[in-house]
């Protein structure tokens, strides 16, 4: 969408798009190991129902999915399959890495056949620690993802550079910007080295129940 790329989308329309994107998240279940059962308990059980957050676990093919919840151990033999399925998903896509196996290899940190963390393969938005994390932890991860989508800047997402998103999250922490991205006080001009520094850095991943990873 030309308008979006050049970042001249009017703010209320961006807000509406972000809201609709965050409330209708079609999830593609990527159940690998024991975390898949906790993910199934979160997605498919009446007690921790995820559909009330607007996350619909219906699609069976990656083409119709918005975000993928990688839950379980990713082995070296499985890594290319994870990569291909991530590429099959249409563009505004997000990823939650659930469980310590997906985060960093977990109890198999010294195994010869386990990839130490799925973020070596696909960019991850939210990490949910735990082995296996409780379904409530996954729900909190999804809520955090929804908040990130609500405050997201469409242009950055489509242009692929995370500059504006990172700047906004930092600005939000610094208190210059309120939750909806409106400036509280005088806007600071993004200096060239800030832009250059930001380009090289991945967005701050959110860790459920903990600060960003040092």
């Amino acid at each position: 969408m030309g308008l979006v790329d050049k970042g001249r989308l009017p703010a209320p329309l961006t807000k509406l798009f972000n809201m609709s994107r965050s409330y209708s998240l079609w999830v593609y279940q990527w159940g690998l190991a024991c975390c898949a059962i906790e993910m199934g308990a979160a997605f498919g059980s009446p007690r921790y129902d995820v559909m009330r957050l607007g996350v619909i676990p219906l699609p069976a093919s990656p083409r119709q999915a918005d975000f993928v919840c990688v839950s379980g151990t990713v082995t070296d033999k499985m890594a290319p399959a994870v990569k291909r399925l991530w590429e099959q998903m249409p563009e505004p896509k997000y990823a939650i890495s659930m469980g310590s196996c997906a985060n960093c290899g977990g109890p198999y940190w010294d195994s010869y056949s386990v990839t130490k963390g799925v973020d070596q393969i696909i960019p991850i938005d939210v990490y949910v620690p735990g082995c296996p994390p409780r379904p409530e932890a996954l729900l909190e991860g999804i809520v955090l993802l929804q908040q990130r989508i609500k405050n997201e800047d469409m242009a950055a997402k489509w242009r692929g550079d995370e500059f504006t998103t990172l700047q906004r999250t930092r600005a939000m922490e610094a208190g210059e910007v309120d939750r909806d991205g409106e400036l509280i006080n005088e806007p600071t001009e993004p200096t060239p080295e800030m832009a250059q520094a930001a380009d090289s850095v991945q967005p701050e991943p959110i860790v459920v129940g903990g600060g960003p990873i040092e």
Partner: protein
Amino acid sequence: MTLTDRQQLSYIASQAADARLNVELETEGMTLNIGPQHPATHGTLRIICRLDGEQVVWAEPVAGYMHRGYEKLTEVRTFPQVTTLVNRIDWLGSFANEVPFILAAEKLMEIEAPPRAQVIRTILFELSRIANVSLFLGDLGVQMGAITPVFLAFRDREYILNLIEGATGGRFHPNFDRIGGLKDDLPKGWIEETRGAVKKLEQFCDTIDDLLFGNEIFQSRMRGIGIIPADIAKDYGLSGANARASGIDWDLRRDQDIPLSYDLADWKVWTHPDGDSWARCWIRLQETRESCKIVTQLLDQIPAGPVMTKVPRIIKVPEGEAWVSTENPLGEMGYYVVSKGGLGPFRVKIRSASFNNISIVPWALKGVYVPDVITILASLYFILGDIDR
């Protein structure tokens, strides 16, 4: 064993598939691979099958997508650390994985858990079986296309997970076993709560019985599909409900002397002559009911006394080899522990049930329709961690 006509039919179908394989295929067969990520397989099993139209002529499962190298990791860990690792093999009934390993270590050290610990171990063993098989019963519906039963299964399974969490602290990776007994005793009020939860599970079994097993479409999809006669089941080493469904009257809980207290409760071992998918699922349903019976009976016979024998703080298991196998929810799971007197085991051979249960798939899937591939796999009921270790 007289072959029922259904078994002859299945033989003829597979022979026909064989014949077609040898004769030059005039229609260029299509190779379809199901998996590695596929909604039907419980995780990452990939099956390559060559189709002739809708019929599978040749099928070969490719395992290894979940291989985490357990046997190598156990060689560099101490005994208590291995139990943490080992209860992630069959991640649905994960307390059941620790028990045979701990029993093998206790056999090597020639010590035995006190009677109270044995009864509590048996109760928790049966509770993890109920948790495992109840999800299987719910998931059976999803494989066949009925969406609702899985929600019933997850809802009722939560009661059991609460119990296990109450007693051990972990929802389903409890790590509650120690060499020589248990970590600590049951919390207050746990026994009454268990009785209530087990009653709910019996109601769950009845609802699944008439909601799913009573459904004509379900029966027409399951009966007479994927028939495995007893001698072929023994040849491949099928165990658990898959073996009993082919008429093999063999249950490790009853047929061998291991220090678990199954003889305190009276319960029945179910077998079924047909050996088809329906029999396997039906037997698992009856076994869940039996487990509920065992738990309710054992709850009244928990003896008083300590939960842990006198064991030195840092355990050095004397030199020797031991083999212990128990009746896990998926089948016979056994550990062959070789110890050289160190803190950790020298070699642990993990005999997991699903590895043998799935090795029969190339034989069972010959001459079968594509939808039946899913039925047979669902009825064999494997867990990926169990196959790939």
